[in-house]
């Protein structure tokens, strides 16, 4: 909590890049940045003050590194494979990898899901909605 408070402060400070001409483009963001800095300090202050009271914070959940990683990796693969390989590999990889994030997921089940969704997506997006996104392509276009 403290960290984000400080983070917001620093963020606010970097936002002061704008030029303070009278009501120029920079004025509004700079004003907001200053407000955010103040708020950030407030939050940080309450976080510090709140600790002795035994405020445990609300981060009671276990970290789910596998889940998080897979959910981030899915769209990342979608981007890379979408640019270099086309819709089918991108879709398949995206669904397959994100599905692996669930603890009860099996390799086989995820593969099956990915395959079904890929076929479905190809029909829906390529043939029905005609999104200009080739099913397969090689190299960057």
């Amino acid at each position, binding site marked *: 909590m403290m960290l984000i408070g400080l983070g917001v402060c620093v963020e606010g400070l970097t936002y002061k890049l704008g030029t303070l001409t009278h009501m120029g483009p920079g004025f509004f963001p700079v004003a*907001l*940045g200053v407000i955010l800095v103040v708020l950030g300090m407030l939050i940080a202050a309450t976080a510090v003050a709140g600790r002795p009271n035994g*405020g445990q914070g609300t981060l009671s959940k276990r970290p789910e590194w596998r889940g998080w990683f897979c959910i981030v990796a899915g*769209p990342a693969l979608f*981007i890379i494979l979408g*640019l270099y390989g086309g819709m089918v590999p991108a879709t398949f990889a995206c669904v397959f990898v*994100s*599905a692996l994030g669930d603890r009860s997921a099996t390799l086989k089940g995820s593969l099956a899901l990915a395959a079904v*969704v890929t076929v479905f997506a190809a029909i829906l997006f390529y043939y029905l909605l005609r999104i200009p996104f080739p099913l397969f392509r090689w190299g960057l276009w």
Partner: protein
Amino acid sequence: MGALVIETALQDLWYGFGVALEPHNLLWCFVGVLVGNMVGVLPGMGPLATISMLLPLTYAMKPVAAILMLAGVYYGAQYGGAICSILLNLPCHPPHAVTCLDGFPLTKQGKGGTALGITVLASFVGASFGITEMIFLAPLLVKVALQFGPAEVCTLMLLGLLAGSTLARGSPVKGVAMTVLGLILSTVGSDLETGATRYTFGVPELTDGIELIALALGLFGVAEFMNSINQNAPVDTRYSNVRLRDLRPSREDLRISFPPMIRGTLIGSLCALIPGTGPTIASFVSYATEKKVSKTPERFGLGAIEGVACPEASTHSSVQSDFIPTMSLGIPGDAVLALLLGALIIQGIVPGPQLINQHPDVFWGLIASFWIGNIMLVALNVPLIGVWVKMLSIPYRYLYPTAILFVCMGVYAANNDMFQVAETLVIGVFGYLLLRLDFHPAPLLLGFVLGSRFEENFRRAMLIGRGDFMMFLERPISATFLALSVILIATQLYFWLSKRRSATGESPATVS
């Protein structure tokens, strides 16, 4: 005078029905409520995520159809959420958390069908009242709001933003911080007046600003999936066998639950008029009221049918009347409505008091579609309850990878631009970090959607007032709004301080 008001309102409404009943619009309205109802039932999928996912689709649609569909998702989800609460004790949507308290005990007693029947009825009553309220109040508000100059618009937005960020879940200071962050994010891109680029850090794709779709899907799609993965408790469907004929409530039940319905409706519509208090607060307040009013408060929590009727009616009336400030003033009460406004902006329609005159088809069509949509929902819910219950058993592990794909595809298809998928991903990770630290993303979206109009009006006001802040105080209406904002902050501070002193470390923040 009064008769004239009613007559013009009826005329406009008639026109609205004409718009809403066009086959094209009718179809999209149906799609909206159907999808809404579906995601309302599914745990782990909220109306926010769904509307964000459907947002790219609206690019290719006409404005009226787009807004009818998205609004349909919103109120359709409310019907679905009630099913989930009553039959499974899963408060998947915050407004319906209260319904669990009495709904689930009823289900255990084998009266789940009755509870659902009452819910459908209560919802319809509540919604109808909310819609009626909108028909008469919105034009009045518009008349007043058309007199507003930039200073008034500016302070009104300030009030709306403050209310939206402090009255919502979690710590008020964090809420305000998120709103400010949203405002800052909205300044990314070209400057409104000079066209100078701001905060693009040399990335040409950011010149047009951050895409609403990327922001919404990042915050309510990717971040939500990261939050809810491996968190879903196994669904207990033991009690959820409901047959159609169970739905019809007995005369006795009807008699008991009628007054609570009316009370709930009134509370809901009042809550909606106060900016920032959406359906969630309305349903909690009405449950508490009902318990106080009741002659047998000890029955509450053990399966009192009033405890279902009242909050449900108030949720629905609040959901419908929430559209009043959104459509007439352009100030959304919560994140869902902010998204709807965003959808309008994407369509090139400027929200605000001029909307009702410039785009009567959107405004009256929407109102008429509320009626049609609610009737559709009643018709859908009664025979399809079995199907909805079956859908509950779809495991989350099949659901979310598919949803992630839809997110990626939707963002890509909106502009055929992979950069925005990356944008979504980054925002999603960032949003999840914020969520972990108890910052709720809803105020951020509110700030983002209102940001550019806020800045525009602020600058205009300063131009008129020659850079003197006193002009906000000199004009009576804007001074009133400012005073209200100050009162709002003061009461928040007061509550916060007293809570700090009394409760030891009990934080008002709730994670959901």
